[in-house]
């Protein structure tokens, strides 16, 4: 009967028997303001939170880092914890768009656009912390190697913080380009459906006058592949370099060679958790259940299980290394982490959220449960935040000299800045949902599996609704289906 056979065992990647036109309609819908009320509500809340964050940052810049709880022993606390957390979250987007593209994982098309957007916004939030944790943020440009009249005085190329500057700015640039490249044909689609001149001009500008010629498509495909190739090593390098901030130091608990792979696995782990959180919310708000399906969620849950276990193994390896190395400082550090009276609770939150709880995803039932997945994604986000807190604060608060051992607790300004970045992130994400196509229209269409009979049936349904055929018996028409 059908010319194209699709295995009934494999779930379709797009559900609801969509036609190409329906896909366009469904996805462009959000950019036309059809879902305005929900959007205004959530954006207002996010913007208020973001404003509070900006206020806290302003407070810190005006009055000094002394408004934070950081102290003579714990010089980095929530600032760098948040930085590493956000950077980690920013990993899933590139992984989905680049590595999964190279591996021909077709399911990625449903979520890659939003995941890439999330990456960009997460890196924006992450970038705020290294800038505003500086005591003299007004001299932040000192960190760039630019020709100057002071000698010239160059930056210190042995400092991992400098490597961070390069790694993160490169990552941000490539991710942004990649994301935007994908958006170009979709902007053209929105432009073509726009009803006002202004809207047309706006999206025409964004789409660089895309006309969908074969040449355009051909170049677009090549560029996507090149950028995918460029981003792939970046997925590994960014968090590796972030981990060097710690790995190259002398502080017990930081000074370990396992940190790079451990950080990369952790980043993917937290990134996917954040993608899940956002997707579950977005598919509900934007009514995208047909495009972001349970199959997507299940796939991502499998990745969570894998990376969570990898991270867990890293935790256990650290303990083993401390014991096996006979390094007394290292042993003391890890004993403090796990059993110390000050922050052991943070360690166990990390352990239970990151290593223990993802193990429920061995069960298909939980992998396919929206509720369980949502709770789990939040837990992993919390767990991964604590992982960074454990590494940074616990290692610092009791290092070599017992005389300097101290406790750290944050002030409302530090908390406010963190909460504020969540607000900034959500505001940007919601703006993206409102004005940009949330799902990659062109790419989703490429994976739509349709055969002749399906198309014909669909056409007939549409025809039956038309005025001209009102007189004809509908049942009669549909018998050809």
């Amino acid at each position, binding site marked *: 009967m059908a010319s194209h056979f699709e295995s009934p065992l494999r779930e379709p990647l797009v559900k609801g028997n969509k036609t190409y036109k329906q896909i366009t309609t469904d996805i462009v819908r959000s950019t036309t303001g059809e879902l305005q009320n929900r959007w205004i509500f959530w954006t207002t809340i996010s913007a208020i939170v973001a404003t509070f964050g900006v206020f806290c940052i302003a407070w810190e810049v005006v009055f000094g*880092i002394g408004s934070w709880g950081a102290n003579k022993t714990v010089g980095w606390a929530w600032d760098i914890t948040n930085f590493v957390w956000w950077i980690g979250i920013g990993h899933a987007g590139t992984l989905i768009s680049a590595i999964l593209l190279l591996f021909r994982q077709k399911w990625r098309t449903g979520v890659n656009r939003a995941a890439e957007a999330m990456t960009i916004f997460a890196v924006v939030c992450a970038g705020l912390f290294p800038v505003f944790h500086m005591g003299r943020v007004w001299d932040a440009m000192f960190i760039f190697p630019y020709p100057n009249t002071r000698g010239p005085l160059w930056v210190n190329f042995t400092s991992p913080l400098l490597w961070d500057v390069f790694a993160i700015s490169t990552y941000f640039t490539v991710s942004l380009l990649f994301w935007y490249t994908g958006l170009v044909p979709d902007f053209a689609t929105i432009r073509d459906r726009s009803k006002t001149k202004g809207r047309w001009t706006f999206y025409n500008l964004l789409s660089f006058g895309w006309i969908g010629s074969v040449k355009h498509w051909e170049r677009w495909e090549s560029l996507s592949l090149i950028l995918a190739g460029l981003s792939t090593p970046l997925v590994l390098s960014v968090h590796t370099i972030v981990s060097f901030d710690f790995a190259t130091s002398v502080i017990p608990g930081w000074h370990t060679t396992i940190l790079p792979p451990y950080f990369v696995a952790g980043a993917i782990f937290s990134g996917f958790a954040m993608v899940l959180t956002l997707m579950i919310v977005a598919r509900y708000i934007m009514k995208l259940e047909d495009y972001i399906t349970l199959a997507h969620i299940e796939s991502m849950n499998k990745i969570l299980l894998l990376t969570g276990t990898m991270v867990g193994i890293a935790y256990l390896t650290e303990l083993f290394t401390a014991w096996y190395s006979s390094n007394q400082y290292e042993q003391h550090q890890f004993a403090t982490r796990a059993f110390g009276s000050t922050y052991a609770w943070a360690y166990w939150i990390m352990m239970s959220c990151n290593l223990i709880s993802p193990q429920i995803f061995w069960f298909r039932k939980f992998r396919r449960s929206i509720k369980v997945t949502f709770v789990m994604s939040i837990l992993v986000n919390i767990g991964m935040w604590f992982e960074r807190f454990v590494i940074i604060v616990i290692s610092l608060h009791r290092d070599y000299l017992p005389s300097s051992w*101290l406790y750290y607790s944050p002030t409302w300004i530090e908390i406010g800045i963190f909460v504020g970045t969540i607000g900034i992130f959500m505001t940007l994400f919601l703006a993206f949902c409102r004005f940009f196509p949330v799902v990659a229209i062109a790419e989703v269409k490429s994976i739509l599996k349709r055969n002749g009979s399906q198309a014909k049936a669909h056409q007939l349904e549409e025809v039956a609704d038309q005025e001209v055929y009102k007189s004809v018996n509908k049942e009669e028409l549909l018998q050809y289906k």
Partner: protein
Amino acid sequence: MSNKKYWTSLDELNQTPAYFEQANQEFSLVEDATESIENKEPNRRDFLKAMGFSVSVAAVASACQIPVKNAIPYTFDLRNQMPEVVPGVAEFFATTYYGSADFNSILVKTREGRPIKVEGNPSAKFFGGTSARAQAAVLDLYDVTRLHNPVKANKKIDWKKADAEIIKKLDELKASGQKVVVVTNTILSTITKKAIEQLKTTYANVSVVAYDPISQYAIRKASGGIIPAYQFDKADVIVGFNCDFLGTWMNGTENAAKYVTKRVPTPENPTMSRHHQFQSSMSLTGASADYKYPIKPSEEKQVLINLYTKLGGSVSGAKDFSNKELNTGIDKVAKELVAAKGKSIVVSGTNDVEIQSLVNAINATLSNFGATIDTSNTLNFKQGNDEALATLASELKNGAYKGIILVGANPVYDTVYAETFKNALQKADLSISTADRVDESAQYCQYVAPNSHLLESWDVIEPRTNVYGFVQPTITALFDTRQESASILTWAGNVNVAIDSLVQAEIASVSGLSYSEALQAGFVDKTSGIGASALPGISTITTPTQPKGMELFLYEKVAIGDGKLANNPFLQEMPDPISKATWDNYILVPYSFAKENKIDSMPADKKVPVGKITVAGKSFELPIVVQFGQAQNTLAIALGYGREKSGNVGSGVGANLYPILKNNTNSVDGVTFELTGKTYNLGLNQTYHTLMEDVSLPGKPLRYRGMVVKETNLASYSKSETAGNEDREAIQKHLVTMYPTPKFPGHHWGMLVDMNACIGCGACVVACNIENNIPVVGRRQVFRSQEMHWLRIDRYYNGNPDNPDVSFQPMMCQHCDNAPCENVCPVNATNHSSEGINQMAYNRCIGTRYCANNCPFKVRRFNWLDYQGNDMFGSFNDGTPGWGGSETKDYMFDSLTRMVLNPDVVVRTRGVIEKCSFCTQRIQSSKLDAKKQNRKLQDGDVKTACQTACPTNAIVFGDMNDKNSQVAQTLDSGRNYFLFEEQHFLNHVGYQVKIRNKDEESQRSFFDKEG
């Protein structure tokens, strides 16, 4: 092809040598050009160019308003007017710092006429060390609370008018036969004493009462009116009873300097004195002792009776304690004292006549008088008479005195008779105070005749018979103040007294030297021999009474003392050497008591519980600090706090315990204690886990504690020079690296700290603060661990927490040659000098704090807020960084206080890291001096601020490349070790193994015993 040759000149054509020379010169044209400028007279065009430029520059410059900044107001030709003052070159003046229990011969460093730093006077030997109080004295000079002029009823008055009115009143009182009393504290000044005598001669109705807030009257009473001078450099066995003779008792600096001469064994002479300390709470002195015996204040007399009996003295009432350790301790002490007859000292700081006569009797039995205790060159400290004070108080109640003159005394604050004095002052016909501020007593006086600061005064100080310190002004009086001796002399009838010539005559007469020689020396010691006169024997010794309930031990803190110095922010912020707390007084509770009451002995977050004690109907709510080594069932609280009128720094800090100081004894019984359930944010400088146990494995010592503090006992040291430091050889053998070791061909600066010589007094901490313009941050910031001290003294305990051993470890930047901080700075703001100094370029620092994180010693300090110059923060004790904080407990926010800043050291801005620089400004200036004198830099030319401040010479600094330097020689000693040497930081601050004169090896940790 043509063979034509082109030529540019005849020279070229002829190929003359001149041509070749010119043609080979690359820049011949340029040279020509410069020559023409140099040689030629300016022509018309040049003139027009220059005119055009300067006119336009002048036009532009005059168009912009350039703010005028007043720097040094030397508007006249300085070299002619004051040839000795060279801008940029420091002047040193020999003078004296003194208090009722302190005496330091000092050199005051002035820059452009401003005193900015106190240094020890090296020629004064044992008197030439400094204490934290002496170091902080310069800041008192610039105290904004000081009165700017004499005051009558809170209104400004001029001296002439005030004097006339006072003299008129005095005459009236004399005529009507009314009595006038002069109330003083201890007066060490011979000038003031003479002035008071003269007042008494002029006015027969004047009598004098001297008292001390913290009294030692019992010693004088038991010793026939004298306080003998204890010579700790002559004693092999020292037994102290609640006597903080290295710190707050009296004459701490001289005692410490002498004490240490017998505390540092060398391989050639592996001996040291043995020090036993019976104490109710851990004191600075107790921390240095070899054996410590925690006793309740009420037990002291019994201990002395037992000891005296054991030494063969005839006294009744000897009774063994139920505490067996104490009994064996007394046996041991008795045995050692007998063995060291004539070479021992027994000393008590308890203000109790019977105790002091027992002490004298014991010393007499041991033939110490004339050997280790000098009865002829006696101490002049603590001249207060408790009985006279009590009599005065009862007479004042009856209204016996119509005139009260307070000379340096503040009885409304620091006596139990506060109410009596307050009423008497208000009712008196004439009441005068010479306080330099309107203090608790002066506020009730009709006249306040403000005394000048000692750095503005002329004086002769006699701390010990035949020992004189001279005081000369280092600056003209900042305000319209007059030193108290001049005031008194004026009132005694010597109008227009010239105090300077008076003092100059006195200096010449007492010193036996020429006036200028004496003034330059600043100090004469004319003592000879040791007096051995017998002191009065024991009268009756009553049986010790049983105390009721808990006992409260009242002590004095090393920094603040009796409360006079409460307005000095450096002293307020100096961590107490023992408790490491700043800015407050608190209830010290023993460890056993804390365990019983479930008080967290080590609150990680510094939120300490608040306790309430009630004694004699008075209640005090104070934070609780657990003190290891404190006697059971005994609480301890520091006096000198709770000032109400000390000024914007000290007022309202802590609670005033003087109202319960009955009979001036340092303890009371019948104290009830309860926990309030509240917590207090205490400014602790060093918090928890100073016992160095493994936090994760309770019951085990911290595994690497031996890498931090190394210690041994004398017996082991006399066997092997490397005792306690045995692992160093193995560590050094394993220091293998594939990287080249840094080389320092010129100087290579290093520092060594002798942990045996260090008594933990904190003078170096304050010296470092002042030398390096280190900001004071306030209690709130210390609570948040955002203090700025570049140099700190780490205090560690080990052994039994009820009676632990104490180690002090001064900790500053270790100047690692392989510094972890240097390679992590993204902007190269910290780097290594060619002389091995880890340096900071503040201007380059952007404040990532990465270096501070990566410092294994945590000595890098971050400027969290704008400490010096931003008045946005208001108060640093109560204000939050941000909007709010309205109180002005500020420091450095006014131009007067900023005068104390050292112009050689940059004042750091907010947001940069700073740390110990090895006093790089001193190194630089010494180098320049040597260069000017055309010689090599010698060992001892450069001395860091901490080094010169140290009364016990525990800190040595110098060039490690100079084989003859003290540093290089000690570097190879068996005692020397570097912290975490196996980590290969190549740090260059070495520590000498702590040696205790104990028979047994010190316990590694108390958990060895318990766990």
